[in-house]
């Protein structure tokens, strides 16, 4: 009576204490029951089983229901996730009632399997190729540079990896589909020290290096790119307040930012000034002890959900020297947000316009001196570029692992895809691109840590290289998965959508080339 398509037997030794005879193990893992569409059909099946059980008993067989509490939405039902959760309870209750009367006995499949050291393996019953699931698959291919990391960094990496696999990866698809901003998960991440990573301990930060942070962001983005990217922006703003803020600003915001009680966004881009950021139009007019901010910012990650906005606004003459930076708190009169933009990816965090209509902030909300804003914004972006590059690495590493596994398991023309040289060469190129990107990102992080004069160039190069190469890698992975790669059931397309924007934000990759050539000029060649 095994209803799994392949009907694989579950063996277990925990049957002692039962009356002698044969035990039939009936698996009710819902993954095996794709053909049940509603409670009525479920009741019908239970009734059939009741009759079958009687017959079995009459033949000297003691029937046992092994129930697996896993249940997902039936593929062809319209129930929402929440309904599915509720229905799971209903299904399980019906099953429990059913099994309380002879001839059936009920056992929890998970408990039994755990007793045998096994776990319910949902993949086994898929007729389709298995979905690469970061929650249960270790990555074999994404440790190409571990030997050069310190023991500390490796320990941070291990912890971030565990968090990514257990807390982020299993939820990424739902967050993407439901456009859910997972505040609880972000707070949990902050609870582990991810909220203000390169801020010193005196204000609650974790006191890590940029390199440590880059390694952590890579691991986290393996589990989910947009949530990690949001965290990286939050960290970037925390870094600005730490470096340029007054002691009062540090005290006021950083301890709460470290715990993610206060979330922060970075506001530079405007509808009319993207790559030409120094032409921004938002103004901050001095009025006694206050500044009055007017203008609007576009494409702001975390707009409407963040509590604190680092806003670049013009206090002086046109050009970069006339710009200052301000901290604007959510709730300030005159501050409002545009609609949530519909996007290709990055759906787990809202992107909105941030509109300021005469927002009054005290002079002490200014970060740095008047006219320093653009320099602050650019310095922040150096680190931001390392972070976003690192977020690309993790997403690409996920896709490489998924593609490599698919190539091993998918058979065509009588052999695994991995046996074809075309596949081998593609995977080799993908792994090389990922490795090169990783080296560039970590090198740029090290340059920032060292305060090297080449840091700005290294950051721009790393961002340009890693974001483009990693996006291409996700596209290659999708191609390797063929039709399955295009399905939302398989996570690669989501990673591809999420990585696409990395070539655009934190300065487009065209602007990266401008910076690189300018820095080459400044440094007198390489």
């Amino acid at each position, binding site marked *: 009576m095994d209803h*799994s398509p392949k*009907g694989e037997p579950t063996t277990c030794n925990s049957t002692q204490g039962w009356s002698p005879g044969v035990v*039939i193990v009936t698996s009710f893992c819902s993954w095996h029951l794709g053909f049940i569409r509603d409670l009525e059909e479920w009741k019908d099946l239970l009734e059939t089983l009741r009759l079958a059980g009687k017959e079995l008993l009459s033949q000297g067989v003691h029937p046992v229901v092994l129930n697996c509490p896993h249940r997902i939405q039936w593929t062809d039902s319209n129930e929402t996730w929440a309904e599915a959760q509720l229905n799971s309870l209903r299904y399980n209750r019906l099953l429990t009632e059913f099994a309380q009367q002879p001839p059936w006995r009920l056992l929890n499949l998970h408990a039994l399997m755990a*007793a045998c050291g096994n776990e319910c393996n949902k993949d086994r019953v898929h007729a389709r190729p298995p979905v690469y699931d970061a929650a249960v698959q270790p990555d*074999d291919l994404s440790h190409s540079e571990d030997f050069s990391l310190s023991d500390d960094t490796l320990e941070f990496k291990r912890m971030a990896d565990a968090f990514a696999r257990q807390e982020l990866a299993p939820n990424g698809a739902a967050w993407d589909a439901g456009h859910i901003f997972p505040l609880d998960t972000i707070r949990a991440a902050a609870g582990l*020290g991810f909220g203000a990573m390169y801020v010193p301990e005196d204000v609650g930060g*974790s*006191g890590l290096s940029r390199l440590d942070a880059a390694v952590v962001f890579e691991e986290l983005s393996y589990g989910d790119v947009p949530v990690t990217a949001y965290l990286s922006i939050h960290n970037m703003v925390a870094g600005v307040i730490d470096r340029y803020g007054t002691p009062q600003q540090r005290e006021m915001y950083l301890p709460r930012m470290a715990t993610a009680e206060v979330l922060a966004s970075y506001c530079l881009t405007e509808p009319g000034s993207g790559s030409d950021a120094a032409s921004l139009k938002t103004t901050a007019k001095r009025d006694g002890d206050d500044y009055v901010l007017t203008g609007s910012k576009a494409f702001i990650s975390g707009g409407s959900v963040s509590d604190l906005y680092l806003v670049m606004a013009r206090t002086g003459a046109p050009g970069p020297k006339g710009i200052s930076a301000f901290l604007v708190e959510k709730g300030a009169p005159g501050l409002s947000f545009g609609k949530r933009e519909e996007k290709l990816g990055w759906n787990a965090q809202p992107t909105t316009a941030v509109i300021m209509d005469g927002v009054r902030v005290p002079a002490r909300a200014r970060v740095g001196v008047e006219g320093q804003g653009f320099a602050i914004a650019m310095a922040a972006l150096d680190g931001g570029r390392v972070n976003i590059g690192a977020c690309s690495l993790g997403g690409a590493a996920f896709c490489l692992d998924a593609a490599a596994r698919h190539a091993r398991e998918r058979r065509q023309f009588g052999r695994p895809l991995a046996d074809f040289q075309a596949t081998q060469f593609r995977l080799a190129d993908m792994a090389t691109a990922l490795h090169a990107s990783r080296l560039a990102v970590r090198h740029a992080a090290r340059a920032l840590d060292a305060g090297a004069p080449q840091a700005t160039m290294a950051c721009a190069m790393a961002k340009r290289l890693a974001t483009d190469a990693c996006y291409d890698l996700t596209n290659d992975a999708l191609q390797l998965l063929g039709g399955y790669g295009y399905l939302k059931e398989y996570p690669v397309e989501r990673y591809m959508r999420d990585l696409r924007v990395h070539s655009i934000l934190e300065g487009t990759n065209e602007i990266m080339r401008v910076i690189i050539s300018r820095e080459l000029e400044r440094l007198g060649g390489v």
Partner: protein
Amino acid sequence: MRVLVAVKRVIDYNARVRVKPDKSGVDLKNVKMGMNPFCEIAVEEAVKLKEGGSASEVVAVTIGPKAAGDTLRTALAMGADRGVHVLEDGEVQPLAVAKLLAALTRREEATLCMLGKQAIDDDSNQTGQGLAGLLGWPQATFASKVVVDREAGRASVTREVDGGLETLSLKLPAVITADLRLNEPRYATLPNIMKAKKKKVDTVTAQELGVDITPRLKLVKVEEPAKRQAGVMLSSVKELVDRLRNEAKVI
């Protein structure tokens, strides 16, 4: 009350296990390693006992090569107070582990030994029991709940058995091994990972502890499990019973 908690470095629970071509064991080269999940649960419980005031100190112990130090660091980052690393490069079988832990328990004057119920690499499920035997202490294995009454000097341990829950009351000192649902191990936080670096780790060898760890068992060969066969769908119970009786001959 000092708690001694044993942690083992094993192949990651999700890693693809590959048997060496010569069948001499599992290939551990370039495989992700980590703390045995049941050991993580044991560490979590020990740290909880300390946080709850039942324990005064948690000492984490590992036995293995230099790389096992990573596992010890993880335990320290989770909240163990200090570590002991028994440095051994060769094979250490369950009986030898139990002997080493017994020697350390005596040296550290521990009142409670917390272990995972088994390690997921060899699945021996012997160490805790062996340790209790060697020390002459009571044991409670497969714990799903642990309550320590420090004043009474007793521990109450719940175990999941087939018929339901079994609760044992044991006199301390004792050995307890952790089952899957005892707790959910915490993540070490970034600041705690850094603090762990400053915690003390003693390194000793089996020889210094006066323990003979010569293997008593010989591994003959390790093989991949047989490939699973696909199942069949049957149309009726009659057919099922018929095939169980006449084909499988189990009825």
